[in-house]
Every structure is written in structure tokens, then in C-alpha cells.
């Protein structure tokens, strides 16, 4: 293998080292492409996920436009089916997961007092393979004549139930893209999960014991373990689907004696932990925002942490509630019905503790707080509607009806997206040094809150009135007209709220009209606020010594035995806050060895969609992708992680 000879530098290595140096020093495009800095990767994740959120949102608007009246002909059934499939796939795998990953990247090292994640280049690989997978999957739209209205996207639903997902029933390449695209993004998530599990366990600052970690870090840790154990399951399911589709294997072929229920078990054995992969980071964000804006510590910290861990464990024992109607029998349904009901207990503990946090506080109703409170409220509704159809007999009616659509949007939009927006408003000042406009933020919040409830509450009713999911149209006379009209109006209200957010972004960052943030604009509690805004690339000039939970708060305030708050003598806080480097950030930064930028993660990640394309269209392309992957991996393994002086 020629590439193994690197200790003696080849011409290629020299060229790359030169480019790497350029990337290290510059602020241009190259410096972003080769970056291994967790903050930059976090921002890349955030921006990519937001753009994909717009794509998924556009798909939702088309869906709602089609359903606005009965028998509308805005979309053909084929277009509709592909759009709802891509809406689901996009929102789950390309929006909520990477947005959560954006927060993991931005915050975890800062919150635990580290200079970067454990494996910065693996982190870059995670991002690039996510982006590659997302572009690959969305490229499927163009595999047919899109300009004459023929979409090429996957068309068997985001859940890809076999045998509908087999080529006999979904010919064309859409579902090939689905199987391979999700495989790539799954690998990306797995790499991220491994990285953050190691980072959190191994990279904590001195004194940062596990039970001094912010709840967000805890939830990241639980999520990482869920990813580590859930991703291989979906990987196997997707491989089986791929083998069935591309190489005529028989995993789901009933003619050969297979049973398509195998797919459902594997998909939901992954899929239910996945739900908590989507929501636990949001729980973490809520648990950071509520204390800051209530100016009180999180109520019952250990209980919030343990309930999160409990949810992580229990999420492995409830998958059959997606399959009550598949005829698994009374014993399976009873057991999983009870386990599903009981997952309400740890979830309830979280909600009660959040209320306890606000109770008796001094509550500042700033934009992040509004989103966090909104998330708790809407998530509560979603959780409770979940209890109603965890009741197995009741679910026989609600399964695959709009009631379920209402439920999980309350959980994943009402819970996750609201919390994630809260997180954006909360932490943006830390990384940009500017504050979002408060008024526009409140306008966005209320538009979104009203639009959200207008969209999804009526779906409870249309579901109870017997409207099944995933139908591209309905006849009048079913009693569903009004509810669908309301939902569609609501969807456009949500779209308006997103436009307000974009306007706010432009106002704040493009026109640079946003207020200067300062280092600690919210009087917050966790370590990241002890750093200058924007955070210098080395994070901590000196690795902090941690003495307690909410360490930064305790540098600013003292607490007497009754819990009354006394400020620390003026001046002391500021000095400690900057790690005692007295404003000499530049000087302080010089002695620190940070991981050097690298192009190899990008090269390796690029190999994956190329290989996938080859598998679908022409096996001759596969070796090209494999070569990219191998070159990337060997270059990665052999280049020094940190450039010598």
C-alpha cells in the first residue's frame, strides 16, 4: 500500500500539509472545509440542518396545500407520497438529529471544560458524512424528470415497511437512495455518538465529576449511548433492505418464506430509542434554560438526571407500541402496553421538576425562556396524548390515523423544535457576540405557538374522526374538511414564524444590528458563560478547576445556609470568569497545542456517497469511492494530529 510510506513525506503529503497550514491560519472557505474545531463543526451542523429544515418545511407546506380541501389536485398521489416520505426522513435524520449534534458540538466541550472533543477529526468526518448522506438522499429528487413533475425521491414512507419498499412495489431508485442514504447518515451519527460518549467520560476538567455536569451534558451522554446501540440495528435493517433491493436477497420476500414483520421489529427496535435520541437533547436544553431564566438552580438535579437515564433504558422496551395492530398477540401487547405507559413516569418527573425550578423564582420571560416554557407545555400535551394511545385497545383505533400524527408532532415539533429554537436564542450570543432582536423573537414565538397548535391540535380530531395517515386526498362527506383547513392555515402560520426568524437573523447578523452581547448576557450558570464571546478557538486559556454544580454561578454568587443569595465581592467574578488571564487571550492562546485542520475526514466521507452511487448505477464507480475512503482513512491515520512547532 503506497500510502503507508508517509513518515517520509511524499509530494502529496507536502501539498496537503501546505493547504493545511493555509487552512489553519485563514478565515476563508478552506479553513472551514478542513476545520476540526468543535465550534465550527457545530455551526456547520446548525446551518446545514437549518437549511434542510427549510427543505423539509417546504415539503410539509406542499403536503398541507394538497390537503387543504377534499379532492384537491395540487399534487399527484405519486408526488404526494414522495414528499411525505422525504418530509419524515428529512425532519428526523437531517434536521432534529443534526441540530442536536450542533448543540453537542458547540456546548459539550465548553460545558465540561475541554479544549475540543476527544476525536476532532472523527468529528469532522461525522459532519461531512452527514452532509454527504443528506445531499445524496435529496439528490434522489432529480433522478427522474423533475421539471415535468416526476420526483425521484423515495416513496415507501420514512419507515420503509417491507414489502412495499421492495422493487416489485416501489420500482425506480428512490428507495435505493433511502436505504443507502440513511446508512451513510447512520454511520455519521454512530461516529458522533462514540465521540461524545468518550468526550464526556474522558475529557472533563479537574473537579468536573459526573454529578457536577450540566444536565445538557448528561442528556448528551445518554443520547450518545442510545446512538451507539440503536444505530447498528437500523444499519442491519438497511443492509437487509439493500441486499433485497440490489442483489435479490430474500430477507423480506414472502414468496421465499420470509416475513416482512422482521423489518418492523428491527426498524422500531431502532426507532423507539431514536425518538429519545431526538427528544433527550431538547430536554437537556430546557434543563439549562429554565434555571438561568428563573435564576434558581434546577430543581431536583439528580432526579432529572436519573429520569433521563431511566428513559434511555426504558426506550429499549417499548418498540412494539408501534406494532400493536400487527397481531403479535395479547401477551406481547399487554407487556409492551404496560412498559409504554410506565415510560410516562420518568417523563413526568422531568416535567414536575421543571415546574419546581420555575416555582418561586424570579422569572425573566426572555425569548429563550418563552421557547423553553412553550416546549414544556406542548411536550406535556404530546406526552399525555401518547398515554391515551399507549392504551392498546384505544390504539387499535388511533394507530396510523391523524391522531398519531398530532401526537408525535406535539412531541417532536412542540418538544424538540421549540426547545432547539430556545437553544439557538440562548447560546447564539456566546458564539457570535450578538443578541438576537428580542421583539422579533417574541413575534416568532407567538406566531409559531399559535401556528403549531392550529396545525396539530385539529389533527387529534381528524384522527378520532377516522382519517388515516398518508392519504394524498379525501372525499368530502367524511367530516374532515374543517380540520384539514385549520391544519393547513396553521402550517402557513408556522412558515410565517420561520420567515420572522430569518428576518431576525438578517437583522442581527447580516445587517449587524443585533446588540453586543458581552460574555454573560443572561447571568447564566454553566462554564461556557465564563468564556469571552465569541469563544476563542482554544476555548479555555487555562483548564478550569471545577468546585460544584453550576460552577460559574457560584463564582458570581454565594449562598447562605437558607439558600439566600449574596453576590461575590464585585470584581472577583470578572477576574475568575476569564480564567485569570487578565485579557491576554492572544498571548494565552499561543502556547496551546490544538489539533491541526485536516482534509482527510472530508476525503474519507466523500467516498461514502460515491460508493453508494456506484452501487445503484454502475459498480465501476464503487472502487473509486472505496479508494477515496481508503486514502482518506490512511492519510488520517498517518498524519500527525497536532502539527509540530
Amino acid at each position: 500500500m503506497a500510502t503507508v510510506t508517509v513518515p517520509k513525506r511524499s509530494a502529496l503529503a507536502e501539498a496537503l500539509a501546505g493547504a493545511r497550514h493555509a487552512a489553519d491560519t485563514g478565515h476563508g472557505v478552506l479553513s472551514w472545509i478542513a476545520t476540526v474545531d468543535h465550534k465550527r463543526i457545530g455551526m456547520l451542523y446548525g446551518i446545514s440542518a437549518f437549511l434542510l429544515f427549510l427543505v423539509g418545511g417546504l415539503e410539509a407546506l406542499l403536503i398541507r396545500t394538497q390537503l387543504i380541501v377534499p379532492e384537491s389536485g395540487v399534487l399527484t398521489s405519486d408526488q404526494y407520497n414522495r414528499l411525505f416520505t422525504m418530509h419524515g426522513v428529512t425532519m428526523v435524520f437531517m434536521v432534529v438529529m443534526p441540530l442536536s449534534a450542533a448543540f453537542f458540538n458547540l456546548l459539550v466541550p465548553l460545558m465540561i471544560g475541554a479544549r475540543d472533543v476527544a476525536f476532532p477529526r472523527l468529528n469532522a468526518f461525522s459532519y461531512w458524512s452527514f452532509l454527504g448522506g443528506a445531499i445524496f438522499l435529496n439528490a434522489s429528487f432529480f433522478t427522474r424528470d423533475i421539471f415535468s413533475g416526476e420526483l425521484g425521491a423515495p416513496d415507501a414512507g420514512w419507515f420503509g415497511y417491507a414489502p412495499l419498499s421492495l422493487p416489485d412495489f416501489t420500482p425506480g431508485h428512490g428507495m435505493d437512495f433511502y436505504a443507502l442514504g440513511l446508512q451513510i447518515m447512520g454511520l455519521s451519527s454512530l461516529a458522533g455518538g462514540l465521540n461524545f460518549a468518550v468526550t464526556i467520560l474522558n475529557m472533563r476538567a479537574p473537579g468536573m465529576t459526573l454529578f457536577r455536569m450540566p444536565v445538557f451534558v448528561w442528556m448528551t451522554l445518554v443520547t450518545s449511548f442510545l446512538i451507539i446501540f440503536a444505530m447498528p440495528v437500523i444499519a442491519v435493517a438497511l443492509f437487509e433492505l439493500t441486499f433485497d433491493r440490489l442483489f435479490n436477497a430474500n430477507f423480506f420476500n414472502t414468496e421465499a418464506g420470509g416475513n416482512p414483520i422482521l423489518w418492523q421489529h428491527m426498524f422500531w427496535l431502532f426507532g423507539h430509542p431514536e425518538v429519545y435520541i431526538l427528544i433527550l437533547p431538547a430536554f437537556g436544553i430546557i434543563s439549562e434554560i429554565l434555571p438561568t431564566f428563573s435564576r434558581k438552580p434546577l430543581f431536583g438535579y439528580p432526579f432529572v438526571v436519573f429520569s433521563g437515564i431511566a428513559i434511555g433504558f426504558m426506550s429499549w422496551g417499548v418498540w412494539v407500541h408501534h406494532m400493536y395492530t400487527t397481531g403479535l398477540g395479547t401477551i406481547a401487547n399487554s407487556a409492551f402496553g404496560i412498559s409504554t405507559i410506565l415510560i410516562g413516569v420518568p417523563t413526568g418527573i422531568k416535567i414536575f421538576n421543571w415546574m419546581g425550578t420555575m416555582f418561586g423564582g424570579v422569572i425573566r420571560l426572555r425569548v429563550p425562556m418563552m421557547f423553553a416554557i412553550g416546549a414544556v407545555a406542548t411536550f406535556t400535551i404530546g406526552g399525555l396524548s401518547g398515554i391515551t394511545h399507549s392504551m392498546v385497545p384505544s390504539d387499535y383505533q388511533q394507530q396510523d390515523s391523524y391522531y398519531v400524527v398530532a401526537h408525535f408532532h406535539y412531541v417532536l415539533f412542540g418538544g424538540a423544535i421549540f426547545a432547539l429554537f430556545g437553544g439557538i436564542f440562548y447560546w447564539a450570543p456566546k458564539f457570535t457576540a450578538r443578541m438576537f432582536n428580542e421583539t422579533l423573537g417574541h413575534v416568532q414565538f407567538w406566531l409559531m405557538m399559535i401556528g403549531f397548535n392550529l396545525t396539530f391540535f385539529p389533527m387529534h380530531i381528524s384522527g378520532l374522526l377516522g382519517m388515516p395517515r398518508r392519504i394524498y386526498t379525501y372525499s368530502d362527506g367524511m367530516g374532515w374538511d374543517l380540520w384539514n383547513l385549520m391544519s393547513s392555515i396553521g402550517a402557513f402560520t408556522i412558515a410565517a414564524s420561520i420567515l420572522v426568524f430569518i428576518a431576525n437573523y438578517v437583522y442581527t447578523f447580516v445587517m449587524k444590528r443585533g446588540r453586543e452581547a458581552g460574555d454573560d448576557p443572561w447571568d447564566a450558570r454553566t462554564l461556557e458563560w465564563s468564556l469571552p464571546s465569541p469563544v476563542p478557538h482554544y476555548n479555555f486559556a487555562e483548564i478550569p478547576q471545577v468546585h460544584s454544580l453550576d460552577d460559574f454561578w457560584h463564582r458570581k454568587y454565594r449562598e447562605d445556609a437558607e439558600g439566600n443569595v449574596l453576590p461575590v465581592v464585585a470584581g472577583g467574578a470578572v477576574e475568575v470568569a476569564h480564567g485569570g488571564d487578565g485579557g491576554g487571550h492572544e498571548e494565552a492562546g499561543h502556547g496551546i497545542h490544538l489539533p491541526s485542520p485536516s482534509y482527510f475526514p472530508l476525503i474519507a466521507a466523500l467516498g461514502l456517497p460515491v460508493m453508494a452511487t456506484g452501487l445503484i448505477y454502475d459498480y465501476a464507480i464503487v472502487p473509486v469511492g472505496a479508494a477515496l475512503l481508503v486514502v482518506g482513512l490512511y492519510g488520517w491515520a498517518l498524519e500527525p494530529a497536532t502539527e509540530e512547532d
Partner: protein
Amino acid sequence: MAHAATGHLETSTGLDNRKLLMWFFLASDCLFFGSFIAAYLLYRDRSLVGPYPEDLFDIPFTSVSAFVLLMSSVSMVLALAAIQRGNVRGMRIWLFTTAMLGTLFIAGQAYEFTEFYHEGLTLSTNLFGTTFFVLTGFHGAHVTIGVLILLSLFVYSLRGGIQQKDSLNVELAGLYWHFVDIVWIVIFTLIYLVQP
């Protein structure tokens, strides 16, 4: 092998980042193979047409190749022990031995696959063909990657890249190798030996 960003610093758990990463990856891989094995067991005896496992399995042959893979774990242990004592030459010999034993196993698998193919078993013949080839194929791919890692380490060490202080590289490769070996023991037991 990837180097940790802050490899010089003490880690919170005292375990090296890369070692922790490898353990978590192997935990994840357990579920990967577990899922394929579950699919195989679910479809055992459900094939509608032959050839069936009992028509094809050559237990003595596969026992030998399982033994070869098992022995490669022994040589892997010896390679690690050598480098930990600073014996680079001994490590090279045992690394190369391990890689060759792995290659021998892969060759055995290739022979077995070819035999089965000639007996009429393909990926699409029946459920047995599908689940068997995909499960053992993925295991074979793991072994192949392992062989590549071992050979890379071997070549790297020829150029002086691995000294006593770098023994972790060998240890990580070893962890992976032993895992793949253990997976084979499970597969060999459940798929070949335990016939209903």
C-alpha cells in the same frame, strides 16, 4: 490509528480515549452481529426450497478454519506481549503470523462460499442462502479489515513507526481482532454446530 487531540493530558477515567472508543465501538458491533444472527435464527428451518444447511455444512472443514482463527488470537496476544516488552522484531513476526492466519481463514471462507455456490446456494436461492451469506459475509468483511489493519501495522513497524511506547496501537488492533474471533465462535456454534 487516530491520535487523540489531547493525548498528553490525563483522561478523567484514566483510560486512553482510543481504548474507550474501541470498547464502545465493539459494544455497538455486538448489536450489529446480534441483529444478523437473530435474523438467521428467525429464518432457520423456514426455507421453502433447498439446499438446506444440513446438505452443505462441512463441519470438519469449518472446524479447522475456526481453529485457525482461534490460533490467530493467540499470535495476536504474543504480538502485543512482544511490543510491550519492547521486542519490535517479535511483534513483527507475530503480527504477520496473525495476519496470515486471518488470510487463511478468509481463504477457507472463500472456498466454502464457492463450494456452496456450486451446490446451488446463492443469495437469492432461499432464506438460508440469504441469511447465511450476509451474516458470514459481514463477518468475513470484518476479518478482512482486521487483516488490513494488521498488515498496515506490520509495514508501519518496518519503517520504525511502532516502538514500545506505541504499544496501544497494537493493543487496539488486538481488541478488534479478538472481538471478531469471538463473534466467529458464536456464529460457528449457533449456525454450524447447533442444528435443530
